[in-house]
């Protein structure tokens, strides 16, 4: 097993799960139309990270979070609560930070969705992602994709945000491991880096 495999899988055989495939997974729709009267299926296309991805025969009640994770091969957004109370599912929809668990996937048609997987190029890290790595802001990692999407959004919208503004901007992102200290440090680090780059 190569070093990169061990890094990437975190303990699970890669044969079971490759989150970076291009293809939509699909296929979970219920096959029997007779019994499907109250399990209606929809087919539509979503724009995710700049690509148009088909969603075929998906139960109409599926959240954007579910579709991203289970049908579109983008399991980076996480399912810690599925009621909009934790931020782990945060994505950008038409440039606004939203909880994808509270978005009906079939209603996201026509909107541009950006997930954690779309923040940097293949195999690369954005400056926010790199700061999280270097400042020790990652422990279990479950809150991290949502946290990074939220802070990326903040820094793009409000580069000079104060510490208090930053705390309020991520007040919908819970972390249970870190106590937020190193996450705040990552924010400050990126802010300084970017302001030096502008100078």
């Amino acid at each position, binding site marked *: *097993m190569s*070093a990169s495999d*061990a*890094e*990437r*899988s*975190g*303990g*699970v*055989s890669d044969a*079971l*799960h490759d*989150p*970076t495939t291009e293809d939509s*997974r699909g296929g*979970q729709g*219920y096959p*029997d139309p007779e019994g499907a009267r109250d*399990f209606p299926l929809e087919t539509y296309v979503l724009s995710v990270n700049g690509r148009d991805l088909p969603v075929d025969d998906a139960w109409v009640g*599926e959240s954007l979070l579910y579709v991203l994770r*289970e049908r579109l091969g983008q*399991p*980076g957004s*996480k*399912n*810690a*609560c*599925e*009621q909009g*109370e*934790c931020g782990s599912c945060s994505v950008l929809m038409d440039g606004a930070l939203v909880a994808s668990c509270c978005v009906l996937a079939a209603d996201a048609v026509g909107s541009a969705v950006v*997930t*954690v997987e779309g923040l*940097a190029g293949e195999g690369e*890290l954005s400056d926010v992602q790199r700061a*999280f*790595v270097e400042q*020790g802001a*990652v*422990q*279990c*990692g*479950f*809150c991290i994709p949502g946290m990074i999407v939220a802070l990326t959004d903040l820094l793009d919208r409000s580069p000079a945000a104060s510490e*208090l503004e930053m*705390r*309020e901007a*991520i*007040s*919908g*992102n*819970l972390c*249970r*491991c*870190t*106590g*937020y*200290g*190193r*996450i705040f440090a990552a924010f400050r680090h990126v802010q300084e880096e970017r302001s030096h780059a502008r100078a």
Partner: protein
Amino acid sequence: MPAPSLPATFTRRRRAPGLGESVLRPDAPPKVRGEFAFSSDLYVDGMVWGKTVRSPYPHARILGIDITGALAMPGVHAVVTQEDLWGSRTYGLEHHDQPVFADGMVRFHGEPVAAVAADHPELAARACAAIAVEYEVLEPLVDAEAAITAPPIHPDGNVFRHVRLRYGDPEAIGDVVVEGSYEVGMQDQAFLGPESGLAVPSEDGGVELFVATQWLHVDRDQIAACLNLPREKVRLSLAGTGGAFGGREDLSMQIHACLLALVTRRPVKMVYSREESFFGHVHRHPAKLWYRHHARRDGTLVNVESRMVFDGGAYTSSSTAVISNASCFAAGPYYVPNGRVDGYAVRTNNPPCGAMRGFGAVQTSFAAEAQMDKLAAALGMDPVELRLKNALKTHDQLLTGQVITGTAPVQECISACAELPLPPAADPGADLMTLPGGAGRTALSHNVRRGVGFAVGFKNLAFSEGFDDYSSARVRLELGADGEPVATVHVATAEVGQGFVTLAQQIARAELGVGSVVLHPADTQVGSAGSTSASRQTMMSGGAVQMACAGVREVVLERAALDLHLAPADMVLDDGELTTKDGGRSVSLADALRAGPVEAYREFHHAPTDPLDEDGQGNAHWSLAFAAHRAVVDVDEELGLVRVVQIATAQDIGRALNPLAVTGQIEGGIAQGLGLAVMEEIVVADGRIRNPSFTDYLLPTPLDMPPVLQTWIEQPERGAPYGAKGVGEPPTISSTGAIVAAIRAATGRPLTRIPVRPDDIALAAPATSTPAAS
């Protein structure tokens, strides 16, 4: 205490490269890219979704379960109940009293009754709803005190354990006596990654399980027993784990998923919703504690008496160990020449309780530290001075009669913490968002009073009371494809976020001088690493990795020595080179590996401990860790709202092997202590959980966490790898008490219950029990 049986090289102080540095986590890059596979991210073609049916009643007889409707539903592959188990119908960490599915009797709200497998999670949910269970609802036993003598709600009785501790002269009386009764509410681990995993049936009739857990081997053993499979046919691999904090030490969906996989012959994925998660794992024991402290006029402690009842809920889990810890450490980190403790862990129809970070020491620390403040007030003494005066030291005896032989820098922790700078005085012009009430903007600065509080705590590291605690590691050193040495470390250590994956690499690099260290996935193909709990993995699995590296080093030294016609004792492995001690001649590690890979497998056991005798006496613990906390709070008294302004801490860590990781563990542990102090409680009424969601089970947000000032006391612990102590639990033990002490200072309220609720501060007569259901 007998010296640990370890090779001589183990205790040799090596300032090895990499150890002691803030090496970055190897799994951070995939985690920040969203590519790290957590247990809930697993996917395989053809998989079906499992879901559990749970009892809506805390206590009921099951008269019948009709699954025919569910089985007939489209997309449903299987429905299973206890009738479908081929082996044991119960499991458990200490006693196997917890049914896989309720055994004709439901004993807690949410107890599993059946499980289904279906094509889509929504179909599985509908199938669960279609399962008709006929219950005869029974009156739940919810009063833990009454449970001690009440008719048993289980054949094994209602008392999991009574620890009776008598030390010195338990009748000793002091000049000054203070008494108090305290209460701790039920906290939840609330790890963000939901209970989840993927069970895949194997060709040989066994099953493979990818799961988030704290202890692979104990999970495997329980699954094997319940499915009547030999252990070798139950193969577990650790899937990415989104936190644990004790809540994954007991089984949740493991047996259910494996059973469904074997019945359907399909891979089965189970993912709990957050709501189900609140029902699906054990919680921290709520407790009622009575204390009476005796001291001399000069503040010297004379006797500590305590009686405490921990509500363990429906099944044993790890209650017998929790109450033991609570009892052993009941007095706090102070020398007391006499003691009387009666600790009860009891069975009720409340939600089952078990391990959570701090494991019994949290509850007693809250009460004991409140007592110390009360004592200080009665003596007219400064609370910090009183603690310094009585602080434990090496060679002191604990309440269990055990003499502390390891490091015990309690005075250093207290002094260092007290010396950390206080925050600046409250600024009258500060943004209202920084005052108590936060975004609700309920207070102006003149509505707010500031208070400062102090608390100290301690507990054991690793497992105690005669348990043969060990971890295993296999290290393999060979030439990689590029011709350079690469080490592979195979340990079953559950990485739940604490950073062992980083440390394992640091240790291997330091011990072998090899840059490239690969971690084999944690699974049951190697020996047990023990539990990721009790702050033990740095010491135990770190020790196992170190020993295995030493074993590898022995062999390569032998090869190099043979090469140079020397004795192995004449050579050292230093920074990738096998050199003579005078540095004159050397063989590269790569050359030494040309003959083939070298592999070593070792177990690290910590020094043996003893069980407690009938007086609660015995050398029950291996190593101890201490921490002091100081909290500054702002309180809006009229509304009872609290803002924690700063927490300062000094922690006894032995040696920092990775400063960045230590920093993160301390900040994270303190956040959980803050949660228990002011906002976290599973509200249980008549056995029912009232708030199984993040809407009403409140975790601290980024607007709730204050800056944390931390300083470390590094006195290396002999017998611990590199002298390092585990750091995970001490931050959670006394941070709660410090915060409540600060609120008392600001408000003058006695505040004998945690979490402190606004009612307790704002109303003239504070409530003494959980709010009644409407």
